[in-house]
């Protein structure tokens, strides 16, 4: 909760108050504004503003996660044990990465139904290159990523140049790419990866305890430094700044959260490398989406494609990039899954992977209508879904019940969001 909360508020740190006495500007050029004392606006004001707009952020998910933890740990004391939480981290990396790709296309108001199939296909391509053609692991992974990029390019071109709805494009992809994967697998059906080296080692690599702690220090330090530098620059430019107290609270919150995670993981086998890969992708993509011109244009096209086009944005390019990003992240997810299984087989990328990935993105708070959502949605959403799955498996509950519960949670998550927004809309207008 603290991670997403603090990160959300970092881009809306306050507002310059409307100063009535300052307004009468001479006609013509705006006067050089006398640098006013940097206005400071309560963090709570910004938060209540967001709530009033019906923007609950990640609050419901955070509450949901706490509920899940309380319920399952009361039913089975093993649920919150370090070993189980480590397993949880391992289980969620692959589907979580695929969900990250889903977030990208959802931001544009598009959908990618092919992500599961593409993850399976790319994993098979990687395995064939590594096992049958003797490529080094790095080159085989690169081959899988290029395959994903080409597939995404095809999807993007079909969406933009042929004006096909993305639902249909990727539905065709869902069926077609799975067919290609089965074709490549051939009669073998299963190809094993040597589990003691190369790609399979990926999911059996753990950071030594000191490295885990170093990571915490570096992340918190970088976050704090970035916040303070931004604060300084904003203050110098006469813009509103965060209060020092709030900066401290946010960084401390982040530190506590990360430290707790590392403490738990270190008391078992350590921080798994796959979790670092997934978490790294979440953080880097979030920075790309919120801090770069490219990311700004993703949100713009998702919010109002026609307005973006009129503003001179190449919306075709943005859409193609989103589909390529989605397919490449699906490829990464497929590689992580294959690494964990140390094999690829006919069910790679199949069963409920796609549905869980989409559900995770939506539960985490990504809008299906585009323009709203963050990469942390994939992290939080997959955490919810995987916790339920994991908890149910611990309790030895049949998968029928698991599906029903997951479906219920998905419905509730979207209902809360809709109701909050409708309530806000009724209140304002």
């Amino acid at each position, binding site marked *: 909760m603290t991670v997403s909360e603090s990160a959300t508020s970092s881009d809306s740190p306050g507002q310059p108050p409307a100063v009535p006495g300052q307004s009468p500007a001479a006609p013509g050029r705006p006067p050089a504004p006398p640098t006013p004392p940097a206005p400071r606006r309560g963090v709570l004001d910004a938060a209540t503003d967001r709530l009033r707009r019906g923007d609950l952020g990640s609050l419901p998910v955070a509450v949901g996660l706490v509920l899940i933890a309380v319920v399952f740990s009361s039913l089975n004391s093993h649920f919150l044990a370090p070993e189980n939480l480590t397993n949880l981290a391992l289980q969620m990396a692959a589907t979580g990465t695929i969900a990250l790709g889903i977030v990208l296309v959802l931001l544009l108001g598009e959908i990618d139904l092919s992500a599961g199939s593409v993850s399976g296909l790319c994993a098979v391509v990687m395995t064939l290159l590594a096992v049958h053609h003797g490529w080094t692991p790095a080159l085989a992974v690169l081959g899988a990523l290029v395959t994903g990029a080409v597939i995404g390019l095809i999807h993007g071109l079909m969406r933009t140049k042929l004006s096909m709805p993305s639902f249909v494009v990727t539905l065709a992809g869902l069926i077609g790419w799975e067919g290609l994967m089965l074709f490549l697998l051939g009669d073998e059906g299963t190809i094993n990866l040597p589990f003691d080296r190369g790609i399979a080692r990926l999911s059996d690599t753990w950071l030594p305890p000191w490295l885990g702690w170093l990571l915490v220090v570096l992340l918190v330090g970088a976050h704090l430094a970035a916040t303070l530098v931004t604060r300084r620059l904003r203050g110098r430019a006469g813009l509103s700044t965060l209060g020092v107290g709030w900066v401290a609270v946010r960084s401390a919150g982040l530190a506590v959260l990360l430290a707790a995670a590392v403490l738990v993981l270190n008391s078992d086998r350590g921080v798994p490398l796959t979790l670092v890969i997934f978490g790294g992708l979440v953080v880097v993509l979030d920075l790309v989406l919120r801090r770069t011109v490219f990311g700004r244009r993703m*949100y713009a096209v998702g919010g*109002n494609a026609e307005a973006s086009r009129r503003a001179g944005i190449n919306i075709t390019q943005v859409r193609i990039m989103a589909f390529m990003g989605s397919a490449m992240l699906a490829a990464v997810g497929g590689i992580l899954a294959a690494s964990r299984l140390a094999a690829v087989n006919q069910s790679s990328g199949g069963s409920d992977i796609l549905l869980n990935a989409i559900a995770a993105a939506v539960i985490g708070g990504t809008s299906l209508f585009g323009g709203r959502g963050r990469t942390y949605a994939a992290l939080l959403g997959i955490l919810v879904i995987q916790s339920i799955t994991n908890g149910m498996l611990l309790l030895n509950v049949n998968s029928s019940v698991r599906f029903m519960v997951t479906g219920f949670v998905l419905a509730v998550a979207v209902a809360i969001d809709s109701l909050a927004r409708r309530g806000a809309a009724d209140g304002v207008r």
Partner: protein
Amino acid sequence: MPLVLSVRGAAKRYGAVQALGGADLDLRAGEVVALVGDNGAGKSTLVKVVSGAVTSDSGTITFEGRPVRIGRPQDAQALGITTVFQDLALCENLDVVANLYLGTEARHYGVLGEIPMERRARDLLTSLDVKISDVRAPVAALSGGQRQSVAIARALLGEPKVVILDEPTAALGVEQTAQVLALIGRLRDRGLAVLLISHNLADVRQVSDRIVVLRLGRNAGTFETRAVSQETVVAAITGAGA
């Protein structure tokens, strides 16, 4: 006041319909001209001719004394003619700063320059006396008048000489209409030539300096706003006086 834009004899035919039958229009710096007329009088077509959305079949356009050809919207933009359409074209999910700089973001190796953008946005809105308490709030959270103000402010970033406003007060309440009309007055004070298309004669009387009436694709009268009665304008619009 210097003549900025001058249209003579603009004509446009869509199939069997003569949308414009040789209309004239003069815009001067520091003047608000209201373009009024009944539905189908040719207001939109004349605006489209000036903004480059359509090309006229005949007629000439003179910009700052030089004859010009406006074939595409980009031509109009390059001359310094900017149009705020009725649908505003804002991204409701983005904040005010992001909308103001959509497509022209300040950047440093692809990374957004948020601080210079926010600072310039704040200065611009302050100079226009537009009251938006939080420029980091999404546009979806703004009132209709504030959205219109943001759209107009965005049009000013390109440093235009002529601003065309298409029904800027159409869907607004009384107070927000007053805000937008005050903003239009400030555009005039900045020395811009403003063309206001409106159905609302009360707004037109309040903010414009001159009223140009179109009827059936032709000029049906040009009036000094201060000196003309509402009845005279209505008569020109409906053709009752003819």
